[in-house]
């Protein structure tokens, strides 16, 4: 039916106006200098040691938080799958609800909680443990990333895991597999699409955040996101900012390739 395809027309227009042209705009700014002359300088600026360092740190922190999110989310998803049906809806609800408290505020709340004389240290001291100096360090940023993006790991993984037929799991037990063998040999390979999309949903925002590092890093830590943001707001060098953004898009291309490989339909993955 050809008329069916026509229904996508508004969307196609929107893709052009809202995705393709803006990417073109970024490419234009990124590949020109202040005087509109073509240059690769802004893109190559990623090689500048300051930028490289920020990028390296960003990648590192994003990796760490992605791994932590995965380690938290995976067992949770399995537990959620196996809990009985009534509770299942409740649990998704439980993990989505926090998204309704503004994320800037939630992140900021960690400032309050982690402050040297803050709530958590207060509680630790009350039970006789030494206070922790987390705030304004890399750990605080990782914590913020894990906190903000954890639901984006939980949901896609849960989504895929919940669709694994119970009888497949039972078949594995039936053939003598122990629980850990079931997890490594059945659950894990079968939930790869969910993991890939969860990893994407956590890694990319972590990699490019500037808000979390601003709020929990005490202004001491510059991630690549902060640098791009500062080029736009503080330094007013939009060309450089765009050039660096173009570099960031490379990561997105990579993750799209991953998605393409593991999640052909695009159906199973998100929410």
């Amino acid at each position, binding site marked *: 039916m050809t008329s069916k395809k026509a229904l996508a027309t508004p969307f196609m227009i929107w893709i052009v106006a809202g995705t393709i042209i803006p990417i073109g705009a970024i490419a234009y700014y990124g590949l020109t200098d202040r005087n509109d002359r073509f240059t690769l300088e802004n893109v190559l600026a990623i090689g500048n040691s300051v930028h490289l360092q920020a990028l390296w740190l960003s990648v590192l922190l994003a990796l760490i938080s992605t791994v932590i999110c995965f380690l938290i989310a995976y067992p949770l998803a399995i537990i959620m799958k196996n809990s009985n049906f009534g509770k299942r809806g409740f649990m998704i609800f439980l993990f989505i609800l926090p998204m309704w408290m503004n994320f800037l505020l939630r992140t900021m709340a960690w400032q309050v909680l982690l402050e040297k004389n803050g709530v958590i240290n207060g509680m630790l001291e009350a039970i006789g443990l030494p206070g922790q100096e987390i705030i304004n360090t890399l750990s605080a940023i990782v914590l913020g990333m894990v906190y903000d993006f954890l639901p984006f790991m939980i949901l896609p993984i849960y989504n895929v895991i919940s669709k694994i037929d119970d009888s497949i799991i039972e078949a594995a037990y039936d053939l003598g597999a122990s629980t850990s063998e079931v997890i490594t040999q059945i659950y894990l390979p079968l939930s790869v699409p969910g993991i890939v999309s969860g990893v994407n949903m956590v890694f990319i925002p972590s990699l490019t955040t500037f808000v979390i590092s601003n709020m929990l890093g005490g*202004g001491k830590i510059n991630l690549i996101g902060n640098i791009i943001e500062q080029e736009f707001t503080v330094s007013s060098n939009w060309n450089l900012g765009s050039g660096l953004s173009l570099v960031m898009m490379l990561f997105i291309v990579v993750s799209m390739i991953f998605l393409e490989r593991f999640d052909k339909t695009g159906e199973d993955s998100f929410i």
Partner: protein
Amino acid sequence: GNGGGEKVYIYSYGDYFDPDLIGMFEEETGITVVLDTYDTCEEMYPVIKNNSASYDVLCPSDYMIERLIDEDLLSEINFDNVPNIKNIGDKYMEMSKEFDPDNKYSVPHTFGTAGILYNTEMVGDTVIDSWEDLWNEDFSGEIVMQDSIRDTFMVAEKILGYSLNTVDEDELKEATELLKEQKPLVYKYANDSTRDILASESAAMGVIWNGEYLYALELNDKLEFVVPKEGSQLFVDSWVITKTSENKENAEAWINFMCREDIAKQNFEYLTYSCPNVAAQALLDEDVLNNEKVFLTDETIDNCEVLKDLGPEGNELYSKYWKEFKAE
């Protein structure tokens, strides 16, 4: 009521005047106020430069005003519409000439200086009177610095005895090294929240505007403020009107309103930043007026320097070293 849809778009530092004033202004004039705020002038600049959003009135700091004037982004104020300009002290109009040579573009809103706010109990016997005290390793992890290019570099430049407005790359490099050296000791680079951090005793000392002092004292009476002996930055934040303003008369009405003595007084009481409105000063308590941490002595003022715009190359240079220092 917003009679006839009259509006004025204001873009200022966050929490920089008493919000009640908006209601009063609207009541009196029938002009609706639309307020937007920024953290640093650097954040405001591209918005105005690209005219990506159209504001009428801004309240930037000295050096930024200079830059805006240079780049022809401001329009001259019609002082016929701002009769209350008379309330602003001559001394302050004189100061303004540093960045607005003919007093044509700006009307001062606040002025002040940066200093060190510290917790008398936590610093103990140590005398705090120099910027170098912020490099004291005894207070490692208890020092709060500003998180704003020019204000942060200022501290290092003052210690090194350079001008705040230096564009000498070697001098800047030196300052950067100094700041990097201090970085491990710093608890946090913050702006106005320095006040809260000190009030909660999460840190022992921090760089802050003298205008915050009174308010900080309310939260924690162990706090003390000093303007270091090396001298400091003198800032003047003034109202200006954008070139592209579509509501220029409303903007002038707003400025005029803010210059009225009762309004300026009310605002001072809310904000506690020194006000250049002499008519308002006259209405204040003696204690406050004589508190030299609030209303600086001439001696202090003379020891301070006003920030100047550095031009595109200068800005780029600062930006470059700022990133380098942050990347450490």
